């Protein structure tokens, strides 16, 4: 019998620490499948963020580094510049990328650094217990916006690909989500395109993934998926936001 489905070579055969319903596991798997399909596992180097995905090096069967919180693209830059023929990607949460690491992501894109960023937007700080993220929606309750995010004091949520769009060094920017198989198929297409562009030395690429965090949304897994659909999709439109390929 032909084997149709199994563990990608790029994933280690281990149990992850992610909560039930969390999007990180699905996103890891998609990245791993893309790496397998492009046959680049042995030349790919990943950089894990500080955030729930900090242990990605325990799950992905590739060389990986851990970066200080938010400095992920700077670490990727150092690795890529000395090994320009390797495939280098960062995997970052919204706190890592769009709060503490805003400077690094903007300037990495500005340099047209030939790396790929997988940007996981779950609208909260997962690892530290559900505080407001730069992507937390208006009126969304978190540990540090107990009355709901009020733009008067806490500002407005950032749309990262839209923000990076004007940067010439950024060649491919897209947004998808993991809340349905249809979305996952499209997400995989985007991630694959981003890696392929890197292989073609096109420049900086980023794929944002809207991802449910049931634990910190205080919702069941299914309801957290509904929440992403009914709230996040309204503020964060899906699709290819920039494609200069």
């Amino acid at each position, binding site marked *: 019998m032909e084997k149709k489905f199994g563990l990608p070579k790029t994933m280690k055969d281990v149990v992850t620490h992610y909560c039930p319903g969390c999007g990180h596991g699905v996103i890891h798997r998609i990245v791993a499948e893309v790496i397998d399909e492009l046959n680049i*596992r*042995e*030349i*790919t*180097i990943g*950089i*894990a963020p500080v955030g729930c995905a*900090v*242990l990605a*090096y*325990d799950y*992905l*069967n*590739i*060389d*990986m*580094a*851990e*970066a*200080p919180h938010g*400095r992920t693209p*700077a*670490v*990727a*830059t*150092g*690795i*890529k*510049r*000395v*090994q320009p023929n*390797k495939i280098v990607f960062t995997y970052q949460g919204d706190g890592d990328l769009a709060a503490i690491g805003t*400077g*690094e992501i*903007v*300037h990495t894109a500005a*340099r047209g650094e030939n790396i790929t960023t997988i940007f996981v937007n779950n609208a909260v700080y997962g690892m530290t217990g559900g505080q407001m993220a730069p992507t937390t929606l208006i009126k969304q309750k978190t540990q540090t916006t107990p009355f709901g995010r009020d733009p008067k004091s806490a500002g407005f949520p950032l749309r990262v690909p839209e923000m990076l769009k004007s940067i010439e060094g950024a060649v491919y920017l897209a947004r998808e989500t993991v809340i349905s198989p249809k979305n996952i198929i499209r997400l995989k297409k985007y991630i694959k395109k981003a890696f392929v562009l890197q292989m073609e030395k096109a420049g900086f690429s980023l794929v944002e993934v809207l991802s449910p965090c049931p634990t910190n949304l205080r919702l069941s897994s299914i309801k957290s998926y509904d929440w992403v659909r009914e709230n996040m999709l309204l503020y964060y439109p899906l699709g290819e936001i920039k494609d200069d390929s």
Partner: protein
Amino acid sequence: MKNKILISGNEALAEASIQAGCKAYFGYPITPQNEITAYMSRQMPEKNRVFIQAESELAAINMVLGASAAGVRTMTTSSSPGISLMQEAISYMAGDELPCVIANIARGGPGLGNIAGSQSDYFQSVKGGGHGDYNLIVIAPSTVQEMIDLTFTAFDVADKYRTPVIILADGYLGQMMEPTTIIEKKETLHVTKDWALTGAKNRTPNAIHSMYLGDGALEAHNEKLQRKFQKIKKEFCLVEEISTNDAEIILVAYGTVARICKSVLRKLRAKNIKAGLIRPITLWPFPEQAIKKAASKAKFLLTIEMSTGQMVEDVRLATEGKAPVYFYGRTGGGVPKEEEIISIIESKL
């Protein structure tokens, strides 16, 4: 003067790092070290090596982290405020056991301070600077020639012990010009970096990380680091001693101040005052033994610094109370003068 060149401390350090095989340099402008960044921006691309003017010192040191993780010799340089910004990543690199060279052409603080030379980053350099239990090798050149020689040393010991190394100079040393030997490629230590991130081809993947979550895992990792630090203490400590054999008065000074003290020493000896100088070249490991030994025979020690008194604490600890330790310091760009030092010594006799 055949085979000599006239060069500034900053450019000497830059060229030496290139000759020592630095493959990637990342920096951010700050006075009084801008000559290094400028030099590297021209020379590194010419040699097909990596130069990036980063968007901040945070980014620069994390690019160093990445390049080091990828297995190459790499360096950043800055001055005091920029080095403060780098501390988190330096702590990561100590935990990651990643080699690199960081030169601090130090200036006056606290805060923005001024751009004159200063030795007020001693504590930050030798006591950790960032968070967690770790030490860095800290090397303090005193001449432009040493800006060259000790840069070679710094790259070697960084690789040998898998640790970040700080070259702690100051703005005066960075800016001054002196004749030095021609800076030529030297046979430097070559180590195999089988831990580096080069793509997991025909081997299990490598991971560079400083996080250890399992029960007791971080304690075990820290104990391993401590064993390494003890080994470095045993194997690598550099110190210059002048006229300490019969000395009753011991001057202790490093870097720029040690130059002044050498001249003080000659003048004191001319007055038949038996003085000697201990010049720590490595500030960590600190030359405790040399100081302890000298203290057991000395009337007193005088530590002189361009700070309000930082290294003096380590000198006191090293003497184990065997002799009094006095201190004289100038701060905020002030440089101790020979007459000032001599009159302090005469007042204590």
